[in-house]
């Protein structure tokens, strides 16, 4: 569904992405792991069209996205739930959701989707007319996800959905991710929290210093010593050979 | 070069030196990250204060100027107390409001003492005439220019020397990123208050010199456009060095005005140039990078 080839993005002279290639299959939850500063958020912002890459290609369902404005990328069916939520603080919860549906013109569909969001996220319903800037971190995260879903994306990008949230809230977020996956939404998630990610994703990539250094299934991740130690904090039990 | 041209040049140079002081006043505040549209008020207050001392109390010129400077510093410091903690935008508007309030007060204020030639002193909207200290003491325009240049040179030396001290660094750090500066232990409020006081003194000094040069001042002269020009000179000339504002002044008054280049379109050119500069060179012509490069190159040349 999503094919990224040799994508490179720089901030001035600093190359944050040094030639990233990966792909995300339709109907799957693909997870990108990596330490801070690896370039994961840069990748997400580039995919969303906020940042312009120096070279490389991003093909979404066969169509090239590089060079397109963010508005066109949303129209193609890609939506990003950004790191740090980035809700509209001076707009109400309801207005935030309306904003998410900006590219759509079907008023009836939008209204029924908003109702559906409130079923999925009951806490948001309680705060429907509240300014988004006054919500808690977890509520803002749910709002950010709901807002992204309002555009009925075919691929949902999520940048560190669990960061800065209490464990209970994190569990809620990940159960929502599982729900979406079951409903057929394709997801591409960036995470630092490898434990939670292992429970929902079907395919993993590891990114370090602007490059992809690992690609595999959860099982292969569990087998890999380095990953175990660095990201999962586990030591494999000593075998007879070593 | 005939006599008239020389006289004209002397006058122009005096004007440029005086404006440079006002531009330096704006520059100092820009260094600490504040745009002030009220420096013209301290220019005016300094003009009035110095004029009062010399014309009404027959104080010597330097004393009058000094008094004006202190008064300007005090007023600026008092204004800065409640306003420094405002956001940049609110601060700019507050200084603008203050500038207008000062101008209106001067328009309404009358205080005169009698003298052999009639009443002398601020006469509200009519202004303040007969600040004749220079004439009474036979100071020619050339002498005055010498004095003004000496004062300007002194100010520049002090400012440029301060750049290298901890104070100078603190000033610049506050302007670049005040939160970061605070985390480095710099008392941002104190630094800004100090900058405001000195800026007020500089503007008042310029005003005092102006009053004596022209012998007549009126409140209408000290309108926001004057302060806006001062900020413009500093921004165009460059914030990397105290010489920057001088470049801005020389460009406008020296090049554009004096040569009547683009006569009638001077502000169109100046404004357009400034806007372009702000887009691509927001720290002006002599910005920190260029000044740094120049000083490195000169050092290398001196060594070689």
């Amino acid at each position, binding site marked *: 569904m999503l094919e990224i080839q040799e994508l490179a993005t720089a*901030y001035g002279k600093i190359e944050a992405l040094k030639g990233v290639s990966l792909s995300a299959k339709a109907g799957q939850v693909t997870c990108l792991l990596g330490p801070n500063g690896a370039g994961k958020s*840069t990748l997400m*912002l580039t995919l*969303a*069209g*906020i940042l*312009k890459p120096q070279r490389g290609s991003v093909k979404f369902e066969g169509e090239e996205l590089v060079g397109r404005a963010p*508005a066109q990328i*949303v*129209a193609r069916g890609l939506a990003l739930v*950004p*790191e*740090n939520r980035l*809700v*509209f*603080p*001076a*707009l109400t919860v309801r207005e935030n959701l309306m*904003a*998410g549906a*900006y*590219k759509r013109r079907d008023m009836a569909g939008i209204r029924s989707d908003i109702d559906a969001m409130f079923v999925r996220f009951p806490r948001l319903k309680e705060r429907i007319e509240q300014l988004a*800037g006054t919500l808690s971190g977890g509520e803002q995260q749910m709002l950010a996800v709901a807002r992204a879903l309002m555009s009925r994306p075919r691929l949902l990008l999520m940048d560190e959905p669990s960061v800065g949230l209490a464990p209970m809230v994190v569990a809620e977020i990940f159960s929502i991710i599982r729900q979406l996956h079951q409903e057929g939404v394709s997801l591409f998630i960036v995470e630092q929290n490898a434990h939670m990610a292992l429970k929902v994703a079907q395919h993993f990539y590891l990114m370090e210093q602007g490059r992809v250094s690992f690609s595999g299934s959860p099982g292969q991740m569990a087998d890999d010593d380095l990953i175990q130690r660095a990201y999962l904090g586990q030591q494999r039990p000593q075998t007879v050979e070593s | 070069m005939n006599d008239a041209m020389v006289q004209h040049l002397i006058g122009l140079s005096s004007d440029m030196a005086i404006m440079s002081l006002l531009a330096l006043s704006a520059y100092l505040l820009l260094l600490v*990250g504040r*745009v002030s549209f009220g420096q013209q008020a301290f220019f005016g207050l300094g003009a009035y204060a110095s004029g009062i001392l010399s014309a009404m109390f027959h104080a010597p010129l330097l004393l009058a100027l000094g008094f004006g400077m202190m008064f300007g510093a005090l007023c600026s410091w008092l204004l800065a107390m409640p*306003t420094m903690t*405002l*956001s*940049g935008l*609110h601060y*700019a*508007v*507050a200084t603008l*409001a203050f500038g207008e*309030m000062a101008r*209106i*007060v001067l*328009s309404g204020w009358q205080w005169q003492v009698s003298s052999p030639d009639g009443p002398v002193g601020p006469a509200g909207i009519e202004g303040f005439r007969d600040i004749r200290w220079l004439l009474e003491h036979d100071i020619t325009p050339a002498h005055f220019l010498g004095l003004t240049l000496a004062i300007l040179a002194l100010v520049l030396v002090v400012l440029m020397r301060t750049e290298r001290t901890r104070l100078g660094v603190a000033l610049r750090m506050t*302007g*670049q*990123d005040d*939160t*970061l*500066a605070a985390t480095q232990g710099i008392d941002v409020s104190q630094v800004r208050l100090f900058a405001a006081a000195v800026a007020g003194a500089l503007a008042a000094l310029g005003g005092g010199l102006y009053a004596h040069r022209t012998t007549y001042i009126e409140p209408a002269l000290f*309108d*926001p456009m004057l302060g*806006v020009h001062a900020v*413009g000179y500093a*921004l165009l000339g460059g914030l990397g060095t105290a010489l920057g504002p001088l470049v801005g002044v020389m460009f406008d008054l020296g090049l554009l005005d004096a040569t009547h280049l683009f006569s009638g*379109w*001077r*502000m*169109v050119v*100046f*404004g*357009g140039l400034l*806007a372009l500069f*702000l*887009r691509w060179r927001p*720290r002006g012509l002599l910005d920190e990078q260029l000044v740094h490069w120049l000083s490195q190159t000169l050092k290398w040349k001196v060594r070689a």
Partner: protein
Amino acid sequence: MTDLLQLVVDGLIDGGAYALIGLGLSLTFGSLRRLNLAYGATAMLAAYLGAWLYATQQAPAWLVAVTVIVAATLIGWYVERLCFACTTQDATQARGAPVAGADGREVVALASSFAIWMQLEQLAVNLLPRHLNAFPSLAVSQDWQLGELMVRPDRMGLAVMAAALTLGLAAWLERSRIGLSWRASADHRIAAHLVGMPVERLQTVGFAAACALSGLAAFSILSLDGQVTPMFGMWALLKGLVAAMLGGLGSVRGVLWGGLLLGLVESLAQASFGAQGREFASYALLFVVLVAPWRRSRERFLATAVPG
């Protein structure tokens, strides 16, 4: 008592003009979070173009009105392109980090428009060098009698128009799709991009529309005076600024209340302290509102609630 009521009514009616001229300024701030210091000069140059047309071509009032509004729109487009269009992609904002501390960019943001202010003012004065310039007059000199009060119908009409325009615009911004997208883009640029809003286009069109409003305000106000002077630019900026700031920069309804308050304060100040007192009071009011302690805490809330 009637005298006091008359003062109040006069003040409120004058306040309508202030609200009208402040509306465009408040809108540009609402959209860009930056103050357009070239605002007054934009309205003035547009008005001067109208006056020039009137003087040289004896153009009828409606044509002058259209000219002033269109001119203000075009000049506004020029100002926006030159001063405000250059916001570069700020990746730190995208990552949600608040803009830490006041830095050099705030200075630039404030300064670029005053350079154009200088430009536009000179262009206007070059066009019509005289101090007093005739402007088509729509003034009605006869006062209406409302009970014990005397009211100028033309000025009252202006105030009513100001109120209707302000309140109508505020309602439209809250209810329409475009209004939502404009508010969203002003609230958080990057988030607006992420939901597919045409942020740059909204900014440019919004700015031009605000300047069109300034043209409308300029025409309406000047047509009651029958003349325009070079002081108009500064007047428009300062009065508009006070009205907008009193009501909270960026708030459309706020500029109406701010304008009315300003008019009221000025009217009372004039009765007590004369013309100079009137002018002083308007700036003193602005100053007090700016430095007042409650504003500080409101600013702090806004600073935390509105990232970037």
